[in-house]
Protein backbone atom coordinates (compact mmCIF):
# COMPACT_ATOMS: atom_id res chain seq x y z
CA UNK A 1 0.00 0.00 0.00
CA UNK A 2 1.38 3.39 -0.96
CA UNK A 3 1.56 6.28 1.45
CA UNK A 4 -1.26 8.04 -0.34
CA UNK A 5 -3.51 5.01 -0.32
CA UNK A 6 -2.75 4.67 3.38
CA UNK A 7 -3.61 8.32 3.96
CA UNK A 8 -6.95 7.99 2.18
CA UNK A 9 -7.72 4.77 4.05
CA UNK A 10 -6.78 6.36 7.38
CA UNK A 11 -9.11 9.27 6.73
CA UNK A 12 -11.95 6.97 5.70
CA UNK A 13 -11.51 4.86 8.83
CA UNK A 14 -11.53 7.94 11.07
CA UNK A 15 -14.77 9.34 9.70
CA UNK A 16 -16.33 5.87 9.87
CA UNK A 17 -15.23 5.12 13.40
CA UNK A 18 -15.42 8.61 14.92
CA UNK A 19 -18.20 10.47 13.08
CA UNK A 20 -18.81 12.66 16.12
CA UNK A 21 -15.58 14.47 15.43
CA UNK A 22 -17.22 15.98 12.33
CA UNK A 23 -19.72 18.81 12.49
CA UNK A 24 -22.69 19.14 10.17
CA UNK A 25 -20.80 21.77 8.22
CA UNK A 26 -17.84 19.35 7.87
CA UNK A 27 -20.13 16.73 6.34
CA UNK A 28 -21.54 19.26 3.90
CA UNK A 29 -18.02 20.30 2.83
CA UNK A 30 -16.94 16.68 2.50
CA UNK A 31 -19.88 15.99 0.22
CA UNK A 32 -18.79 18.88 -1.97
CA UNK A 33 -15.19 17.62 -2.02
CA UNK A 34 -16.37 14.11 -2.91
CA UNK A 35 -18.07 15.46 -5.98
CA UNK A 36 -14.82 16.99 -7.26
CA UNK A 37 -12.25 14.41 -6.28
CA UNK A 38 -9.12 14.32 -8.47
CA UNK A 39 -7.99 11.01 -10.02
CA UNK A 40 -4.56 11.00 -8.43
CA UNK A 41 -4.19 9.54 -4.92
CA UNK A 42 -1.46 12.04 -4.06
CA UNK A 43 -3.73 14.95 -4.96
CA UNK A 44 -6.61 13.46 -2.99
CA UNK A 45 -4.33 13.11 0.03
CA UNK A 46 -3.12 16.69 -0.32
CA UNK A 47 -6.71 17.89 -0.59
CA UNK A 48 -7.76 15.95 2.50
CA UNK A 49 -4.78 17.13 4.56
CA UNK A 50 -5.37 20.71 3.51
CA UNK A 51 -8.98 20.38 4.60
CA UNK A 52 -7.88 18.88 7.93
CA UNK A 53 -5.43 21.70 8.66
CA UNK A 54 -8.16 24.08 9.94
CA UNK A 55 -7.83 24.78 13.66
CA UNK A 56 -11.46 23.73 14.22
CA UNK A 57 -10.58 20.25 12.91
CA UNK A 58 -7.56 19.79 15.14
CA UNK A 59 -9.04 16.75 16.92
CA UNK A 60 -9.99 15.16 13.65
CA UNK A 61 -6.49 15.73 12.32
CA UNK A 62 -4.90 14.14 15.38
CA UNK A 63 -7.15 11.10 15.02
CA UNK A 64 -6.21 10.88 11.35
CA UNK A 65 -2.47 11.13 12.14
CA UNK A 66 -2.73 8.34 14.72
CA UNK A 67 -4.61 6.14 12.27
CA UNK A 68 -2.04 6.88 9.59
CA UNK A 69 0.76 5.88 11.96
CA UNK A 70 -0.97 2.54 12.47
CA UNK A 71 -1.39 1.93 8.76
CA UNK A 72 2.13 2.86 7.63
CA UNK A 73 4.43 1.68 10.40
CA UNK A 74 7.21 1.13 7.89
CA UNK A 75 7.52 4.81 7.37
CA UNK A 76 7.58 5.53 11.03
CA UNK A 77 9.29 2.74 12.80
CA UNK A 78 11.51 -0.23 12.24
CA UNK A 79 11.18 -0.24 8.47
CA UNK A 80 13.13 1.34 5.66
CA UNK A 81 14.94 4.46 6.79
CA UNK A 82 15.85 6.90 4.06
CA UNK A 83 16.41 10.65 3.95
CA UNK A 84 15.17 13.71 5.84
CA UNK A 85 11.94 12.82 7.63
CA UNK A 86 12.15 9.46 5.88
CA UNK A 87 11.71 11.00 2.47
CA UNK A 88 13.11 9.37 -0.62
CA UNK A 89 13.93 10.34 -4.17
CA UNK A 90 11.67 9.13 -6.95
CA UNK A 91 14.81 8.21 -8.88
CA UNK A 92 15.97 4.60 -8.85
CA UNK A 93 18.55 2.53 -10.77
CA UNK A 94 16.21 2.22 -13.74
CA UNK A 95 14.03 5.32 -13.41
CA UNK A 96 14.97 9.01 -13.53
CA UNK A 97 13.29 11.50 -11.24
CA UNK A 98 10.41 13.62 -12.45
CA UNK A 99 12.32 16.80 -11.65
CA UNK A 100 15.04 15.87 -14.15
CA UNK A 101 12.52 16.22 -16.97
CA UNK A 102 11.84 19.86 -16.19
CA UNK A 103 15.17 21.26 -15.07
CA UNK A 104 17.75 22.68 -17.47
CA UNK A 105 21.01 20.82 -17.97
CA UNK A 106 23.98 22.97 -17.18
CA UNK A 107 27.71 22.71 -16.67
CA UNK A 108 29.99 24.90 -14.62
CA UNK A 109 33.36 26.07 -15.87
CA UNK A 110 36.11 26.45 -13.31
CA UNK A 111 38.57 29.34 -13.55
CA UNK A 112 41.79 28.02 -15.02
CA UNK A 113 45.07 29.74 -14.07
CA UNK A 114 46.05 32.77 -16.12
CA UNK A 115 49.55 33.29 -17.52
CA UNK A 116 52.01 33.93 -14.74
CA UNK A 117 54.13 36.37 -16.72
CA UNK A 118 55.25 39.22 -14.47
CA UNK A 119 53.43 42.40 -15.25
CA UNK A 120 56.17 44.90 -16.07
CA UNK A 121 56.01 48.35 -14.58
CA UNK A 122 55.85 51.36 -16.85
CA UNK A 123 59.16 52.96 -17.51
CA UNK A 124 59.60 56.40 -15.97
Amino acid at each position, binding site marked *: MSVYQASIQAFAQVIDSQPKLLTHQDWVELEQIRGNLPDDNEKITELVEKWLKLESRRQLFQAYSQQLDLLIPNFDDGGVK*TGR*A*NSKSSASPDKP*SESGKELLDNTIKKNSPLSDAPKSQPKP
Partner: protein
Amino acid sequence: MKKFSLTLYAFHLHHTLSEVPGDVDADANLLWENLVKLGETSLRFTGLKDLRSKLVCYDNGKYEPKGEQGRETEWLGNVDNLDLGSLPTPEGFTIHANLQPFLINDTYAADFTLSPESVDISIGLPQLQYFQPSELLPGNIQPSLGQTIWIYGEVDPDADCEQIAKTYATALLAGTNFNPVRKNQGEFFGNPIFEYQVNDSNTPNNPAQQCQIFIELNHAQSSTPQFSENSYDWLLNLLCSYHKIRYVYDLARQRYAEARAIYSYLDKKILEFNHLVNNSQTQLSDLKQLLSEIPRQSLDYTRCLQDLATHHTAIITNITNYQICLDKLTAIGNGNSPQSWQDFLSKDCQKWSKQVQTDINYLTPGQELFGQLVDTIRGVIETQQTESDRSLERTVQVLGIGFGGGAIVSGVVTAGIDKINLPLVQKYPFYSSLFLSIIATLGFIYLGWLIVKCKER
Protein backbone atom coordinates in the same frame (compact mmCIF):
# COMPACT_ATOMS: atom_id res chain seq x y z
CA MET B 1 12.75 15.64 19.51
CA LYS B 2 11.12 12.54 18.02
CA LYS B 3 11.17 11.15 14.49
CA PHE B 4 14.61 12.71 14.39
CA SER B 5 16.81 12.72 11.30
CA LEU B 6 20.14 14.36 10.61
CA THR B 7 20.84 14.75 6.89
CA LEU B 8 23.93 15.90 5.07
CA TYR B 9 23.32 17.16 1.55
CA ALA B 10 26.71 17.50 -0.16
CA PHE B 11 27.32 18.78 -3.70
CA HIS B 12 30.55 18.15 -5.57
CA LEU B 13 31.71 18.91 -9.13
CA HIS B 14 31.74 15.84 -11.37
CA HIS B 15 33.01 17.51 -14.51
CA THR B 16 33.37 21.01 -15.92
CA LEU B 17 32.89 22.64 -19.30
CA SER B 18 36.63 22.34 -19.90
CA GLU B 19 36.57 18.55 -19.82
CA VAL B 20 36.08 16.46 -22.94
CA PRO B 21 32.61 14.82 -22.78
CA GLY B 22 33.02 11.59 -20.83
CA ASP B 23 35.97 12.86 -18.80
CA VAL B 24 35.62 13.93 -15.17
CA ASP B 25 37.21 16.52 -12.93
CA ALA B 26 40.50 15.50 -11.33
CA ASP B 27 38.91 15.41 -7.85
CA ALA B 28 35.52 14.12 -8.94
CA ASN B 29 35.54 11.09 -6.62
CA LEU B 30 36.67 13.06 -3.55
CA LEU B 31 33.13 13.20 -2.14
CA TRP B 32 32.71 9.42 -2.16
CA GLU B 33 36.26 8.84 -0.92
CA ASN B 34 35.72 11.21 2.00
CA LEU B 35 32.49 9.45 2.92
CA VAL B 36 34.34 6.12 2.84
CA LYS B 37 37.03 7.67 5.04
CA LEU B 38 34.32 8.68 7.52
CA GLY B 39 33.14 5.07 7.53
CA GLU B 40 36.66 3.91 8.27
CA THR B 41 37.42 6.38 11.03
CA SER B 42 34.50 7.89 12.92
CA LEU B 43 31.07 6.88 11.62
CA ARG B 44 31.93 3.21 11.29
CA PHE B 45 28.84 2.02 9.45
CA THR B 46 29.70 -1.13 7.56
CA GLY B 47 27.88 0.06 4.47
CA LEU B 48 29.68 3.41 4.51
CA LYS B 49 33.07 1.76 4.68
CA ASP B 50 32.04 -0.45 1.75
CA LEU B 51 30.37 2.39 -0.13
CA ARG B 52 32.49 1.89 -3.25
CA SER B 53 30.82 -1.46 -3.87
CA LYS B 54 27.38 0.18 -3.83
CA LEU B 55 28.00 2.86 -6.47
CA VAL B 56 27.94 2.42 -10.24
CA CYS B 57 30.96 4.71 -10.61
CA TYR B 58 33.22 2.15 -8.91
CA ASP B 59 34.40 -1.16 -10.30
CA ASN B 60 36.10 -3.55 -7.88
CA GLY B 61 36.79 -0.67 -5.52
CA LYS B 62 38.35 1.47 -8.26
CA TYR B 63 36.78 4.72 -9.41
CA GLU B 64 35.49 4.11 -12.95
CA PRO B 65 33.15 6.94 -14.00
CA LYS B 66 32.54 5.16 -17.31
CA GLY B 67 29.99 3.12 -15.39
CA GLU B 68 27.80 6.24 -15.24
CA GLN B 69 27.69 6.76 -18.97
CA GLY B 70 24.55 6.00 -20.89
CA ARG B 71 22.36 5.93 -17.78
CA GLU B 72 19.12 7.86 -17.93
CA THR B 73 18.67 8.13 -14.19
CA GLU B 74 20.41 10.43 -11.73
CA TRP B 75 20.49 7.61 -9.20
CA LEU B 76 24.05 6.35 -8.73
CA GLY B 77 23.41 3.35 -6.51
CA ASN B 78 23.53 -0.24 -7.67
CA VAL B 79 20.27 -0.85 -5.85
CA ASP B 80 17.20 1.17 -4.99
CA ASN B 81 17.93 1.62 -1.30
CA LEU B 82 21.45 2.09 0.05
CA ASP B 83 21.12 0.94 3.63
CA LEU B 84 24.49 1.55 5.28
CA GLY B 85 23.72 -0.32 8.48
CA SER B 86 23.43 0.67 12.13
CA LEU B 87 25.69 1.65 15.00
CA PRO B 88 24.96 1.07 18.70
CA THR B 89 25.01 3.97 21.17
CA PRO B 90 25.90 3.95 24.89
CA GLU B 91 22.21 4.47 25.69
CA GLY B 92 21.20 1.26 23.98
CA PHE B 93 19.45 2.54 20.88
CA THR B 94 21.04 2.23 17.47
CA ILE B 95 21.66 4.86 14.81
CA HIS B 96 20.80 3.98 11.26
CA ALA B 97 22.52 5.39 8.17
CA ASN B 98 21.22 5.68 4.63
CA LEU B 99 22.70 7.16 1.48
CA GLN B 100 20.98 8.52 -1.60
CA PRO B 101 23.65 9.16 -4.28
CA PHE B 102 23.01 11.15 -7.45
CA LEU B 103 24.68 12.55 -10.53
CA ILE B 104 22.78 15.72 -11.41
CA ASN B 105 24.24 17.08 -14.67
CA ASP B 106 27.76 18.09 -13.69
CA THR B 107 27.33 17.50 -9.97
CA TYR B 108 27.60 14.59 -7.60
CA ALA B 109 24.98 14.95 -4.89
CA ALA B 110 24.89 12.87 -1.74
CA ASP B 111 22.12 12.64 0.83
CA PHE B 112 23.64 10.97 3.87
CA THR B 113 20.99 10.60 6.56
CA LEU B 114 21.33 9.38 10.13
CA SER B 115 18.27 8.53 12.22
CA PRO B 116 17.56 6.51 15.35
CA GLU B 117 16.36 2.99 14.73
CA SER B 118 13.01 3.77 16.30
CA VAL B 119 11.05 6.98 15.80
CA ASP B 120 9.89 6.83 19.43
CA ILE B 121 13.38 7.53 20.69
CA SER B 122 13.65 11.12 21.74
CA ILE B 123 16.87 12.78 20.63
CA GLY B 124 17.91 15.51 23.05
CA LEU B 125 21.18 17.39 23.12
CA PRO B 126 23.14 14.55 24.86
CA GLN B 127 21.89 11.99 22.32
CA LEU B 128 22.71 14.32 19.41
CA GLN B 129 26.42 13.85 20.09
CA TYR B 130 26.13 10.13 19.31
CA PHE B 131 25.44 11.17 15.72
CA GLN B 132 28.87 12.90 15.65
CA PRO B 133 27.55 15.87 13.63
CA SER B 134 30.90 17.66 13.65
CA GLU B 135 32.23 14.86 11.41
CA LEU B 136 29.87 16.06 8.71
CA LEU B 137 31.35 19.57 8.45
CA PRO B 138 33.06 20.76 5.22
CA GLY B 139 36.55 20.09 6.58
CA ASN B 140 35.87 16.35 6.38
CA ILE B 141 33.45 16.13 3.48
CA GLN B 142 35.18 18.72 1.24
CA PRO B 143 32.34 19.10 -1.25
CA SER B 144 33.55 21.51 -3.92
CA LEU B 145 30.17 23.20 -4.40
CA GLY B 146 28.95 23.34 -0.82
CA GLN B 147 26.79 21.48 1.64
CA THR B 148 23.67 21.69 3.78
CA ILE B 149 23.02 19.92 7.07
CA TRP B 150 19.34 19.43 7.79
CA ILE B 151 17.88 18.40 11.12
CA TYR B 152 14.27 17.28 11.20
CA GLY B 153 12.27 16.31 14.25
CA GLU B 154 8.89 16.41 15.87
CA VAL B 155 8.37 18.56 18.95
CA ASP B 156 5.41 19.30 21.20
CA PRO B 157 2.87 21.73 19.76
CA ASP B 158 3.58 24.25 22.51
CA ALA B 159 7.37 23.96 22.37
CA ASP B 160 9.55 27.05 21.95
CA CYS B 161 10.81 26.16 18.49
CA GLU B 162 13.20 29.10 18.18
CA GLN B 163 14.97 28.18 21.41
CA ILE B 164 15.11 24.49 20.47
CA ALA B 165 16.60 25.33 17.07
CA LYS B 166 19.20 27.56 18.67
CA THR B 167 20.34 24.93 21.16
CA TYR B 168 20.48 22.19 18.52
CA ALA B 169 22.42 24.41 16.10
CA THR B 170 24.93 25.15 18.84
CA ALA B 171 25.12 21.50 19.90
CA LEU B 172 25.64 20.50 16.28
CA LEU B 173 28.95 22.37 16.28
CA ALA B 174 30.03 21.36 19.79
CA GLY B 175 33.74 20.63 19.99
CA THR B 176 34.55 22.77 16.94
CA ASN B 177 35.74 26.35 16.62
CA PHE B 178 32.65 27.26 14.64
CA ASN B 179 29.61 29.20 15.76
CA PRO B 180 26.30 29.06 13.98
CA VAL B 181 25.06 32.40 12.70
CA ARG B 182 21.30 32.67 12.50
CA LYS B 183 20.27 33.76 9.02
CA ASN B 184 16.55 33.26 8.58
CA GLN B 185 13.46 31.58 9.82
CA GLY B 186 10.24 30.64 8.11
CA GLU B 187 7.84 27.82 7.42
CA PHE B 188 8.38 24.75 5.31
CA PHE B 189 5.40 22.46 4.71
CA GLY B 190 3.80 24.12 7.72
CA ASN B 191 6.79 23.41 9.96
CA PRO B 192 8.90 26.15 11.53
CA ILE B 193 12.31 26.11 9.90
CA PHE B 194 15.45 27.92 11.03
CA GLU B 195 18.47 28.60 8.86
CA TYR B 196 22.00 28.99 10.20
CA GLN B 197 25.28 29.58 8.46
CA VAL B 198 28.70 28.34 9.50
CA ASN B 199 31.70 30.13 8.00
CA ASP B 200 35.31 29.10 8.13
CA SER B 201 37.13 32.20 9.42
CA ASN B 202 40.19 31.28 7.32
CA THR B 203 38.20 31.34 4.08
CA PRO B 204 35.11 33.41 4.89
CA ASN B 205 34.28 34.09 1.24
CA ASN B 206 34.63 30.55 -0.05
CA PRO B 207 31.12 29.08 -0.35
CA ALA B 208 32.55 25.56 -0.50
CA GLN B 209 33.93 25.99 3.00
CA GLN B 210 30.64 27.25 4.39
CA CYS B 211 27.94 25.06 5.79
CA GLN B 212 24.26 25.88 5.62
CA ILE B 213 22.19 24.41 8.43
CA PHE B 214 18.43 23.98 8.49
CA ILE B 215 16.53 22.92 11.58
CA GLU B 216 12.97 21.92 10.75
CA LEU B 217 10.64 21.32 13.66
CA ASN B 218 7.37 19.59 13.06
CA HIS B 219 5.15 20.76 15.90
CA ALA B 220 1.81 19.84 14.37
CA GLN B 221 2.50 16.16 13.58
CA SER B 222 1.71 16.81 9.94
CA SER B 223 3.03 14.04 7.80
CA THR B 224 2.00 13.69 4.21
CA PRO B 225 4.13 16.27 2.42
CA GLN B 226 7.21 14.72 3.97
CA PHE B 227 6.46 11.48 2.16
CA SER B 228 5.97 13.09 -1.18
CA GLU B 229 8.61 11.64 -3.45
CA ASN B 230 8.43 14.65 -5.71
CA SER B 231 9.03 17.05 -2.85
CA TYR B 232 12.25 15.19 -2.10
CA ASP B 233 13.59 15.67 -5.62
CA TRP B 234 12.56 19.31 -5.83
CA LEU B 235 14.21 20.05 -2.50
CA LEU B 236 17.42 18.27 -3.48
CA ASN B 237 17.57 20.18 -6.76
CA LEU B 238 16.74 23.46 -5.06
CA LEU B 239 19.68 23.01 -2.68
CA CYS B 240 21.89 21.95 -5.59
CA SER B 241 20.99 25.05 -7.59
CA TYR B 242 21.46 27.23 -4.50
CA HIS B 243 25.00 26.00 -3.92
CA LYS B 244 25.87 26.19 -7.60
CA ILE B 245 24.67 29.79 -7.87
CA ARG B 246 26.78 30.79 -4.86
CA TYR B 247 29.80 28.85 -6.13
CA VAL B 248 29.65 30.26 -9.65
CA TYR B 249 29.11 33.80 -8.40
CA ASP B 250 32.24 33.43 -6.30
CA LEU B 251 34.13 32.26 -9.41
CA ALA B 252 32.78 35.24 -11.33
CA ARG B 253 33.96 37.69 -8.66
CA GLN B 254 37.42 36.11 -8.71
CA ARG B 255 37.57 36.46 -12.50
CA TYR B 256 36.39 40.06 -12.32
CA ALA B 257 39.18 40.91 -9.85
CA GLU B 258 41.74 39.28 -12.14
CA ALA B 259 40.36 41.07 -15.19
CA ARG B 260 40.52 44.37 -13.29
CA ALA B 261 44.19 43.78 -12.53
CA ILE B 262 44.87 43.21 -16.24
CA TYR B 263 42.79 46.26 -17.12
CA SER B 264 44.96 48.32 -14.79
CA TYR B 265 48.04 46.82 -16.43
CA LEU B 266 46.65 47.83 -19.82
CA ASP B 267 46.21 51.41 -18.64
CA LYS B 268 49.83 51.52 -17.52
CA LYS B 269 50.99 50.05 -20.80
CA ILE B 270 49.19 52.76 -22.74
CA LEU B 271 51.02 55.40 -20.69
CA GLU B 272 54.28 53.57 -21.28
CA PHE B 273 53.59 53.42 -25.00
CA ASN B 274 52.82 57.13 -25.17
CA HIS B 275 56.06 57.84 -23.34
CA LEU B 276 58.05 55.69 -25.74
CA VAL B 277 56.48 57.21 -28.85
CA ASN B 278 57.11 60.77 -27.66
CA ASN B 279 60.69 60.05 -26.69
CA SER B 280 63.18 60.53 -29.55
CA GLN B 281 65.67 58.25 -27.77
CA THR B 282 63.26 55.32 -28.02
CA GLN B 283 64.83 52.23 -29.50
CA LEU B 284 62.95 49.83 -31.68
CA SER B 285 63.78 47.11 -29.15
CA ASP B 286 61.78 48.95 -26.42
CA LEU B 287 58.67 48.88 -28.56
CA LYS B 288 59.25 45.25 -29.49
CA GLN B 289 59.55 44.38 -25.80
CA LEU B 290 56.23 46.12 -25.14
CA LEU B 291 54.63 44.29 -28.03
CA SER B 292 55.89 40.94 -26.78
CA GLU B 293 54.25 41.41 -23.36
CA ILE B 294 50.83 42.63 -24.35
CA PRO B 295 49.38 39.75 -26.41
CA ARG B 296 49.71 37.32 -23.49
CA GLN B 297 47.90 39.72 -21.19
CA SER B 298 45.38 40.38 -23.91
CA LEU B 299 44.71 36.65 -24.15
CA ASP B 300 44.29 36.43 -20.35
CA TYR B 301 41.88 39.34 -20.48
CA THR B 302 39.85 37.69 -23.22
CA ARG B 303 39.77 34.47 -21.19
CA CYS B 304 38.52 36.38 -18.15
CA LEU B 305 35.75 37.91 -20.20
CA GLN B 306 34.87 34.56 -21.74
CA ASP B 307 34.76 32.94 -18.29
CA LEU B 308 32.56 35.75 -16.97
CA ALA B 309 30.13 35.19 -19.84
CA THR B 310 30.14 31.43 -19.12
CA HIS B 311 29.57 32.05 -15.41
CA HIS B 312 26.71 34.41 -16.23
CA THR B 313 25.05 31.71 -18.30
CA ALA B 314 25.53 29.19 -15.46
CA ILE B 315 24.04 31.60 -12.92
CA ILE B 316 21.04 32.40 -15.12
CA THR B 317 20.42 28.69 -15.80
CA ASN B 318 20.62 27.75 -12.14
CA ILE B 319 18.37 30.63 -11.20
CA THR B 320 15.82 29.22 -13.64
CA ASN B 321 16.17 25.77 -12.06
CA TYR B 322 15.94 27.23 -8.56
CA GLN B 323 12.77 29.07 -9.56
CA ILE B 324 11.21 25.87 -10.94
CA CYS B 325 12.09 23.91 -7.77
CA LEU B 326 10.82 26.64 -5.48
CA ASP B 327 7.55 26.92 -7.41
CA LYS B 328 7.04 23.15 -7.13
CA LEU B 329 7.80 23.10 -3.41
CA THR B 330 5.53 26.08 -2.86
CA ALA B 331 2.73 24.29 -4.69
CA ILE B 332 3.28 21.12 -2.62
CA GLY B 333 3.29 23.26 0.54
CA ASN B 334 -0.11 24.69 -0.41
CA GLY B 335 1.30 28.01 -1.46
CA ASN B 336 3.85 28.33 1.32
CA SER B 337 7.61 28.14 1.29
CA PRO B 338 10.27 29.87 3.40
CA GLN B 339 10.34 33.59 2.69
CA SER B 340 14.15 33.55 2.73
CA TRP B 341 14.11 31.17 -0.25
CA GLN B 342 11.90 33.60 -2.13
CA ASP B 343 14.17 36.46 -1.07
CA PHE B 344 17.24 34.61 -2.28
CA LEU B 345 15.61 34.36 -5.68
CA SER B 346 14.19 37.87 -5.89
CA LYS B 347 17.10 39.73 -4.28
CA ASP B 348 20.41 37.84 -4.18
CA CYS B 349 20.00 36.01 -7.49
CA GLN B 350 18.76 39.09 -9.31
CA LYS B 351 21.57 41.21 -7.95
CA TRP B 352 24.24 38.61 -8.67
CA SER B 353 23.18 37.96 -12.26
CA LYS B 354 23.00 41.70 -12.95
CA GLN B 355 26.33 42.25 -11.20
CA VAL B 356 28.10 39.73 -13.42
CA GLN B 357 26.48 41.28 -16.51
CA THR B 358 27.60 44.72 -15.30
CA ASP B 359 31.14 43.41 -14.81
CA ILE B 360 31.10 42.11 -18.37
CA ASN B 361 29.81 45.45 -19.67
CA TYR B 362 32.57 47.30 -17.84
CA LEU B 363 35.32 45.07 -19.14
CA THR B 364 34.24 44.52 -22.75
CA PRO B 365 35.54 47.89 -24.09
CA GLY B 366 38.95 47.03 -22.63
CA GLN B 367 39.14 44.01 -24.88
CA GLU B 368 38.89 46.25 -27.95
CA LEU B 369 41.42 48.62 -26.45
CA PHE B 370 43.87 45.77 -26.01
CA GLY B 371 43.52 44.93 -29.71
CA GLN B 372 43.92 48.55 -30.74
CA LEU B 373 47.00 49.00 -28.55
CA VAL B 374 48.64 45.96 -30.10
CA ASP B 375 47.77 47.20 -33.61
CA THR B 376 49.07 50.68 -32.85
CA ILE B 377 52.36 49.45 -31.40
CA ARG B 378 52.75 47.08 -34.30
CA GLY B 379 52.10 49.98 -36.72
CA VAL B 380 54.71 52.20 -35.04
CA ILE B 381 57.22 49.36 -35.04
CA GLU B 382 56.60 48.68 -38.73
CA THR B 383 57.06 52.35 -39.58
CA GLN B 384 60.27 52.56 -37.61
CA GLN B 385 61.47 49.30 -39.06
CA THR B 386 60.78 50.53 -42.60
CA GLU B 387 62.69 53.73 -41.92
CA SER B 388 65.55 51.80 -40.47
CA ASP B 389 65.58 49.44 -43.45
CA ARG B 390 65.51 52.36 -45.87
CA SER B 391 68.39 54.04 -44.08
CA LEU B 392 70.42 50.86 -44.37
CA GLU B 393 69.53 50.61 -48.02
CA ARG B 394 70.73 54.20 -48.59
CA THR B 395 74.00 53.51 -46.85
CA VAL B 396 74.57 50.43 -48.96
CA GLN B 397 73.81 52.38 -52.12
CA VAL B 398 76.19 55.24 -51.22
CA LEU B 399 78.95 52.86 -50.19
CA GLY B 400 78.35 50.78 -53.30
CA ILE B 401 78.75 53.79 -55.57
CA GLY B 402 81.75 54.99 -53.56
CA PHE B 403 83.65 51.71 -53.49
CA GLY B 404 82.66 50.79 -57.04
CA GLY B 405 83.86 54.12 -58.43
CA GLY B 406 86.90 54.03 -56.16
CA ALA B 407 87.82 50.55 -57.43
CA ILE B 408 87.60 51.69 -61.09
CA VAL B 409 89.74 54.72 -60.41
CA SER B 410 92.16 52.61 -58.39
CA GLY B 411 92.52 50.18 -61.29
CA VAL B 412 93.16 52.92 -63.78
CA VAL B 413 95.59 54.74 -61.49
CA THR B 414 97.53 51.57 -60.68
CA ALA B 415 97.86 50.69 -64.35
CA GLY B 416 98.97 54.19 -65.37
CA ILE B 417 100.87 55.41 -62.34
CA ASP B 418 104.14 55.48 -64.28
CA LYS B 419 102.60 57.90 -66.72
CA ILE B 420 102.01 60.52 -64.12
CA ASN B 421 105.03 62.67 -64.39
CA LEU B 422 105.34 64.00 -60.93
CA PRO B 423 108.51 63.49 -58.88
CA LEU B 424 106.65 62.57 -55.72
CA VAL B 425 104.47 60.04 -57.53
CA GLN B 426 107.47 58.52 -59.29
CA LYS B 427 109.30 58.26 -56.01
CA TYR B 428 106.39 56.59 -54.06
CA PRO B 429 104.15 54.87 -56.69
CA PHE B 430 102.40 52.52 -54.24
CA TYR B 431 101.46 55.14 -51.70
CA SER B 432 100.48 57.50 -54.49
CA SER B 433 98.12 54.88 -55.99
CA LEU B 434 96.61 54.22 -52.59
CA PHE B 435 96.16 57.89 -51.82
CA LEU B 436 94.55 58.61 -55.18
CA SER B 437 92.23 55.60 -54.81
CA ILE B 438 91.09 56.79 -51.37
CA ILE B 439 90.49 60.27 -52.70
CA ALA B 440 88.52 58.83 -55.61
CA THR B 441 86.49 56.51 -53.31
CA LEU B 442 85.59 59.39 -51.03
CA GLY B 443 84.67 61.45 -54.06
CA PHE B 444 82.41 58.70 -55.36
CA ILE B 445 80.83 58.25 -51.91
CA TYR B 446 79.99 61.92 -51.92
CA LEU B 447 78.65 61.56 -55.45
CA GLY B 448 76.59 58.57 -54.37
CA TRP B 449 75.22 60.49 -51.42
CA LEU B 450 74.21 63.34 -53.75
CA ILE B 451 72.49 60.89 -56.13
CA VAL B 452 70.53 59.14 -53.33
CA LYS B 453 69.54 62.47 -51.88
CA CYS B 454 68.34 63.67 -55.25
CA LYS B 455 66.34 60.43 -55.67
CA GLU B 456 64.64 60.92 -52.32
CA ARG B 457 63.53 64.38 -53.33
